[in-house]
């Protein structure tokens, strides 16, 4: 597993795509132009990018309420994504799902999910399927620190371990479940402390560093592809915005110092410094990456805004497959 220039560029690009996608979505939501509740991924980009670089469309992920970043990193198309957030019929889910259910099954993205910890058991099903069908594919559930207290996480982890399934459990430990700090929802600091209880390896990566995540994830995914069973990968990370939306409910539950500390660890400037220091990109070239993505986003938002709303008569369509 060599950290080539291509991989560096890829990590960077995926993170920048997420960052701008989320910032623009957050603004649209705040200004009342976008319906529903958005759980933004800003600050945690290194995790999605570092993992997703290893995955193909045949590898599956399950996501969370905080799912846009995962879909962007898994190659999500901005147009269909914004259209979905806007509830338009051109969206990935024809407007039926919205932010909390955005999905692209064709690319192995088995959906954001409004139910905390619903993803792991589904990913176990996908991992089981990969093994059953004799493929080398892996399934990767993403979930938060808070989610690890749900019974469904536990059941999934145990099943994956006893059946040695190709599943890599990626915990995005951002230190909070909504407004509750980790210390008040579990007596442990490291989610990896749970791995031994399933008989699977638990490894950690700095979730504010895409390269670190890439390395750790690569190891775990390779093990899974080789039939050596699941891994619990914990990435310590931080969300820069509130639980919902950018400024959220205005509750003071985190200190400015804490936020500042993690701002200093912002994974995007961090990798950009690496790119420049290692002569992969110049500052101008980096700016061009941002500009290109911002232009793509502007166009996608226009596309979404000009897209039709779904016809009310379609409300009862898509409940069942009818052949």
């Amino acid at each position: 597993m060599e950290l080539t220039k291509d991989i560096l560029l890829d990590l960077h690009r995926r993170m920048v795509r997420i960052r701008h996608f989320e910032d623009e979505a957050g603004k649209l939501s705040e200004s009342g132009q976008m319906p529903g509740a958005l759980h933004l991924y800003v600050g945690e980009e290194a995790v999605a990018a570092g993992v997703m670089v290893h995955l193909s469309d045949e590898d599956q992920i399950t996501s969370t309420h905080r799912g846009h970043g995962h879909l962007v990193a898994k190659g999500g198309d901005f147009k269909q994504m914004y259209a979905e957030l806007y509830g338009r019929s051109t969206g990935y889910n024809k407007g039926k799902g919205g932010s909390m259910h955005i999905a692209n099954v064709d690319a192995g993205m088995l959906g954001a999910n409004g139910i905390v910890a619903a993803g792991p058991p589904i990913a176990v099903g996908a991992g089981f399927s990969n093994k059953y069908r004799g493929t080398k594919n892996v399934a990767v559930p993403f979930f938060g620190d808070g989610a690890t207290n749900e019974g469904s996480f536990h059941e999934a982890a145990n099943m994956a371990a006893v059946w040695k399934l190709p599943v890599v459990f990626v915990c995005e430990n951002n230190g909070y479940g909504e407004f509750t700090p980790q210390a008040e929802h579990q007596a442990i600091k490291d989610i990896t402390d749970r791995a031994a209880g399933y008989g699977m390896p638990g490894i950690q990566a700095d979730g504010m560093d895409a390269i670190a995540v890439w390395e750790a994830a690569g190891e775990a995914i390779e093990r899974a592809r080789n039939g050596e069973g699941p891994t619990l990968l914990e990435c310590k990370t931080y969300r820069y915005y509130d639980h919902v939306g950018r400024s959220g409910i205005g509750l003071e539950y985190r200190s400015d110092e804490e936020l500042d500390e993690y701002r200093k660890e912002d994974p995007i400037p961090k990798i950009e410094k690496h790119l420049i220091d290692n002569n992969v990109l110049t500052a101008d070239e980096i700016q061009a990456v941002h500009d290109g993505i911002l232009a793509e986003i502007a166009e996608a938002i226009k596309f979404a805004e000009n897209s039709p709303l779904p016809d009310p008569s379609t409300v009862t369509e898509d409940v069942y497959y009818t052949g």
Partner: protein
Amino acid sequence: MTAEATTEARQLPYILAITEGVRQSLQEYDTSFLAGEDVGLAGSVFRIYKGLYAEFGPERVIDSPISEAGLIGLGVGAGATGLRPMIDIMFSDFIGECMDEIANQLAKTRYMFGGKTTLPVTVLTMGGGGINLAAQHSQSLEAWLCHIPGLKVMMPATPHDVKGAIIAANRDENPVFVIMNKASLGITGEVPEEPYAVNIGEAIVRREGSNFTIVAIGRMMHEAMTAAEILEKDGIDVEVIDPLTLQPLDTETILTSVRKTHRALVVHEAVRFGGIGAEIAAQIQENAFDDLDAPVGRIGAPFSPVPFSPPLEQAYLPNAQKIADGVKDLIGLD
């Protein structure tokens, strides 16, 4: 009973009536506590418990891990050993996470033990759609709960009733669900300042009328009241009944009305098929068959999950116009 004008004039929004109901319940019993996800410092994502954490402290207003099964288990164990737990399940959509603890433990323990324990447990949860939260945060699942012997189920529509339901639930020696409504948090109404309980199992006649009975559940009561105004213009004098409690159901108040009006429509936000409206309609025709001039109608959501997109969700949810149309249909107008 008939809705009576109270002498109290204080107006309070639904959201603050919830807070007051819980506050006064915590004051009334030292043995009462509130536990749930983010109910403490944040006062819930809905801010319905704002201030209670500061007032009662972390021993009595308790932020829990994200563990709904654990939370209901907490209620059962604490309720069986001398406390009066108030358990918050943030969205009623999440009861699937703890239906075993609800249906097999909370509801059945007293019976299985031959009556040798009480479980004075209140479960507070937020139901309903209307604010684009999509399929997993907008449901109305009261039918599941009403089918389980051992539970009581309330769906208060007004600020007055939500406060009174919470206090009534907390005073009751049995498990009581109070399903609050997220689209009603801003609705304002008279709420007496002192603690009071509504009567569990007693429906409320919200509007008297002679031509037609609408039984409207939860938030749909407000839509039914608007529908009644629309229909008044067509000369249809509608009586609106708010059951308030769905389990036990006040069948008598409903039947008394139908025996007078000879026609009825039941309305709820839940999916129509298998909703509590089916039970109410079945009971009406069983008990007042000869009084009926038309079949008992039902309006509920169509047979699909709750869609995200605003025009789809609007098409999905029952409202005043659909209710009025349903009444006209049953009467044979239009």
